[in-house]
Every structure is written in structure tokens, then in C-alpha cells.
């Protein structure tokens, strides 16, 4: 059971400003059914350019509904410039706090507000579009978005990033990349918190190298393949040649060569040694399977 504040529960059971404004001045839509939450925000301005009315429609859990409800209350009476300054932290604070794992609801509120303001200012793009490189393919979260939640909320761990914007919460395949973004934004503060990425050693004994290869496959490669119904097995290591077999959906996939070169080898070089190269063991891949979705 989540520990929700009384204020949050009150807004969930009695949400304010539900609905859609007819002929609104700004509309913002974020999220989707697949993501598990979605919010449509509409607002109308008065003669002095202040937000006269704001309404929402939300699909999602109790905190998604409550954050949407308070968001409409918060922005009413504000000018567009004032509203643009509302951060996800302001929304969470207004509710008396949110459980860590629900912080992404407050981020969704801020994103919807931004999209609506953008729609008002430029007339286009009601739906928030992705800007920059997509890092988390499960939830469609970009590098820009991750950087922003890190700096706005002073985050230092991957888990926190997942709580705030969902990135890394699906297959987990992008957690290594999120860690790098954390380091880029936060520097040493993030480094101190990082623990899961195996240390890249200088000179490796054979045993250490094989262990590190196995660990990298377990933590950095398998989760991403699993998300697509596949799997990978480490067959053998001969000097710098890493022999692997693909299982399940990956085994007879035409993309296998692409997957191997681009993902497995890159990850192994990144986390173990630049000298490694990958070969597929075709003999052990002859396992029956079928491509069912």
C-alpha cells in the first residue's frame, strides 16, 4: 500500500476541474495507454492573459489523478510566464510530497503543462514530441528529459531516474546509459552512488576476464534481449574471441548479426576490454522455437 498524504487522497476521491474546455487556448497531451498513465490538459485565458480556467482528463493511478487535479488548481490565476515556471517539485510539494516511486506523476503534470503552453504559443504540437536521442525505448524517454529530471531534482542514482521519469523501468537495458548521463550531469556525486557497473580493469587474468564477460552479459545485454523475447548464452572464451549463442526470438532473427555487432560487442568492449570480438556459435543455436509475439 502506498503512503499517500491526506491531501493527495482528498484530490483523488474528489478531483477538481475534471473534463475538457471547449475551444481552449492551450491543449497538452502526454503519456499513453501503453505507458500506464496519460494526461490531457486544457486551459483558457482571460482578457488580462491569466489562466481563467483549466481542466484535465487522466488515465492512471491515484497519484496521477491527484497530481493532475492539483495542477489545474495551481495554474489558475497565473499568467503564462508564471505557469511556465511550475516544476514537478512544486506539484509534489503542493501535495505534501509523493512516494519516490510515484514522482513520475508530477513530471507528467509538468510535461502536460509545457505541451499546453507550447500549443498556446505556437499553435502547434498538442502532443508532446520527443526531442533528442531516445534512451529508454520501453517508455520513450529521451536524453534531454533524463538530463532535466536529474538536474531539477538533484538525482544521483538510476533508481531515482526511473522513479522520476520511468526511464530504465522496463527491460532495464538502458540502465548503463542512464548511469553515464548521471555522471555527465552530476559528476563525482553520481560516481559515488554508482555501484552496478562493473569496474573496467586494466590488466585482466583469464579468470577475471571471463567473469567480467559473464557479468556484462548478465547485467548489460540479457535484459534488453529478454524484453524482445530473446536470450543469449556465453558458450566459450578463446583469448579475445567471445563465443555466444542466441536463443528464443533472437536465434533465427535476421537482425542477429546487427544485434551481435552493435550491442554485444560494443557492450563487451565498453565494460571489459577493447580487444574483444564476438562470434556466434551456430551449432548450439539449433533449438526449436517459433516467432510468436
Amino acid at each position: 500500500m502506498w503512503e499517500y498524504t491526506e491531501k493527495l487522497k482528498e484530490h483523488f476521491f474528489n478531483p477538481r476541474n475534471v473534463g475538457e474546455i471547449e475551444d481552449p487556448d492551450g491543449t497538452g497531451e502526454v503519456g499513453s495507454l501503453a505507458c500506464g498513465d496519460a494526461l490531457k490538459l486544457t486551459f483558457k485565458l482571460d482578457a488580462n492573459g491569466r489562466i481563467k480556467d483549466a481542466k484535465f482528463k487522466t488515465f492512471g493511478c491515484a497519484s496521477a489523478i491527484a497530481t493532475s487535479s492539483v495542477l489545474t488548481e495551481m495554474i489558475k490565476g497565473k499568467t503564462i510566464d508564471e505557469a511556465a515556471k511550475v516544476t514537478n517539485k512544486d506539484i509534489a510539494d503542493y501535495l505534501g510530497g509523493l512516494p519516490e516511486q510515484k514522482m513520475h506523476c508530477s513530471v507528467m503534470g509538468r510535461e502536460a503543462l509545457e505541451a499546453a503552453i507550447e500549443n498556446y504559443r505556437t499553435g502547434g504540437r498538442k502532443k508532446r514530441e520527443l526531442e533528442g536521442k531516445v534512451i529508454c525505448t520501453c517508455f520513450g524517454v529521451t536524453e534531454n528529459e533524463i538530463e532535466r529530471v536529474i538536474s531539477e531534482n538533484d538525482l544521483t542514482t538510476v533508481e531515482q531516474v526511473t522513479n522520476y521519469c520511468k526511464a530504465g523501468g522496463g527491460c532495464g537495458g538502458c540502465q548503463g546509459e542512464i548511469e553515464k548521463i548521471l555522471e555527465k550531469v552530476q559528476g563525482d556525486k553520481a560516481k559515488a552512488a554508482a555501484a552496478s557497473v562493473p569496474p573496467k580493469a586494466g590488466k585482466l587474468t583469464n579468470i577475471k576476464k571471463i567473469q567480467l564477460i559473464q557479468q556484462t552479459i548478465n547485467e548489460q545485454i540479457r535484459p534488453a534481449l529478454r524484453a524482445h523475447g530473446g536470450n543469449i548464452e556465453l558458450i566459450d572464451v578463446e583469448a579475445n574471441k567471445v563465443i555466444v549463442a542466441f536463443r528464443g526470438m533472437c536465434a533465427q532473427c535476421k537482425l542477429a548479426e546487427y544485434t551481435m555487432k552493435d550491442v554485444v560487442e560494443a557492450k563487451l568492449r565498453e565494460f571489459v576490454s577493447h580487444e574483444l570480438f564476438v562470434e556466434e556459435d551456430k551449432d548450439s543455436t539449433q533449438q526449436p522455437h517459433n516467432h510468436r509475439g
Partner: protein
Amino acid sequence: MKTIYFDNNATTKVAEQVLEEIKPYFCDLYGNPSSMHTFGGQIGAKIRNAREQITALLGCEPSEIIFTAGGTESDNTAIMGTLTAKPNKRKIITTRVEHPAVLTTCRELENHGYTVVELPVDKQGQLALDELEEQIDDDTALVTIMYANNETGVVFPIEKIAELATDKGVIFHTDAVQAIGKIPLNLSKSNIDLLSLSGHKLHAPKGVGALYVKKGTRLSPYMLGGHQEAGRRAGTENVPGIIGLGKACELAAKNIEEENQRVKTLRDKLENALLEKCPGSSLNGGKQNRLPNTTNISFEYIEGEAILLMLDKFGICASSGSACTSGSLEPSHVLRTMGVPFTAAHGSIRFSLSRYNTEEEVDYCLEKMPEIVNKLRELSPFVAT
């Protein structure tokens, strides 16, 4: 406010008769059955009695029962104990819809060089047995497949699966935590080698369970450090728990058919009326081959946690396969594997009944649920109003 408890696949009420039975073992009869003195030694007979009560429900021998700390320990012991006893075999076959106690354990073994095959299920939640048969080979150490699914209540054809595994000389384990007390068993006539059960799912206390090990099945001990349970599970016996589990099994064995028929009638009334009263709702999992107490229904375009909190306001306890109730972000792995679309997977609610539920409780839930669904749909951007 009265609590209406429809979450019996999560845990159950301890039966009053069970509580009465275990009361003396805290302050009066608190001895250790391993002790030399009579005060402790007399407890041994009580444990023997509990073991016999369990064998009566399962149809097996007392020596085939190992007491554990619950379903998770039983599952871990069955998997790890089998693999240790068969060091030359490196393959495990399981399904994608197992409880995490099995699935996470298998996936962890994958990191230690084991090959794990996770069989998919169809829209009804059922397995393709020919696919299972194809996968069993000489390298296979263990097939571990649940008896009944905790989320949907779908029951697998376990006897047929056990026969397939046994024919090929492979050990077969089943996590029967949800099935015990709901489906009559006779293990003496079955090919099941290992079976896990948990006390708190059948009106015994939490923290006690058992693992059935068919006579002659090789299994290495998982917990080390003591001679208890004939050296197969170290640790001083959870005496009150074991005695409670015994009593709970005795109660479950009594009128198992009639009790379950009564629960099934209530479940069917709840299920049929919800599907009829709430537009955009659908049943998850095949109607046939299902536990008598479980129903899992999806309500389109609304989210499970929000439904649960509104039910909670009326004192109704249920559960959801929705991501937002679990702290994870992706909806139920069971429903996703079954191909339930996202439109419905996020809004799935499981009602699981027990013999303590009444028709009035079902009626009360039927009165409240449509209101809740309507209220949340009014909020949803995916529903035109």
C-alpha cells in the same frame, strides 16, 4: 466499516479452529522437539500428527513431507536441491507465468550458466504441451510448472505434464501453492516428484509451508546446519506453524468438494454480474480449467490502482496486476504473456474468494463496482463523454 476480503490468493484468514489448536504451543508447550527431556520430546508426536494430517489431504506418505518456512522456500529448495543432486544436467524448463519464487530463481541460475526455457502461454493462459515435449532433452534436469496461476486462477494439466517429464526421466516440480485445498489430489497415484505448498494460502499462519518429495527422488538439502526433517531441512521446527498447517489441511480435506462448489457459485455470481454490469470489461484466462475461487477481470481505459483505492474506501479488498500497485512500471507479466492488450492490462482486478465469504458480500461489491468504473471512466482521456 466491515472488511470484505476478496484477496485470498494473497493470503487468507487463519481459521478459528487452527488458532485454537496452536495456542498452547507458545507459552505452555514451547519445548524443542529435538530435546532429550519429555517436555521437549513430547512435541515430536504433535509434529508427527501434523505430518499425517497433511498426507491425508495430499494422498502421500509422512516421510515424503518436508516442513519449510513457506512456498518460496519450498520452491527454492525444489529447484536448487534438484540441480545440486544432478550436477551434469544444465537445463531447466519452466513457464513465463510462474510466481517470482520460481521465475526469479530460474533467471538467477541462467546467470550461473544454466539454460532456462520459459514456455509461453496462449490467450486462454494455457500451455502448448507439444512445445514442452519438444524441449525436454538429455540435458534437462528439471521441469518446474505451477499447478494453478495466482493471478488468473488458470489450472495447467499437471498430471499430463508430470507424465511427459517422467517418461523422459526428468524430475518434475510443481508450485501448487494456489491449488492446495481447492483441487483434490492423490499424489500416490501421480507422477509429480516435488510439490510446494504454503500454509497461509489455506487458512494456516504465515511462515510455514511444506515440500512434498516423492520417495526415491534425489534432492540435496538447501538449508544446512541441523539434523531436522531427517537431515533434509535444517533449523528448529516452527512448531505452532506446523501444527497449524496440519489442522488447516484437515479442515480443507473435510468437504473439499462441497466447500469449493459453494465458493465457485459465489465467484460465478460475482464474475457474471460484473461482466454484465460494467461495459468494456472482459475476463482474463480461460473459463474452463480454473480455480473455483478466482476471477480476473479487465476494465478498459482505467487503471487498477485507482480502482483498488476506491474499493478500499468501501472496505472491499482485492488486488490488481497493474504496474502501479507493485512499484514496478510494466503491467503483470502474466497478462502480458497472455497477450492482453495494454488497454485492458493496466485495469485488471483479481477477486479471490474463500469459504468465509458470503453472498451479501458479493452483492455489496456488485453494487459498488459499476459506480467506481463509471467514475474513473469520466476521468479517463480515452473515453468519450
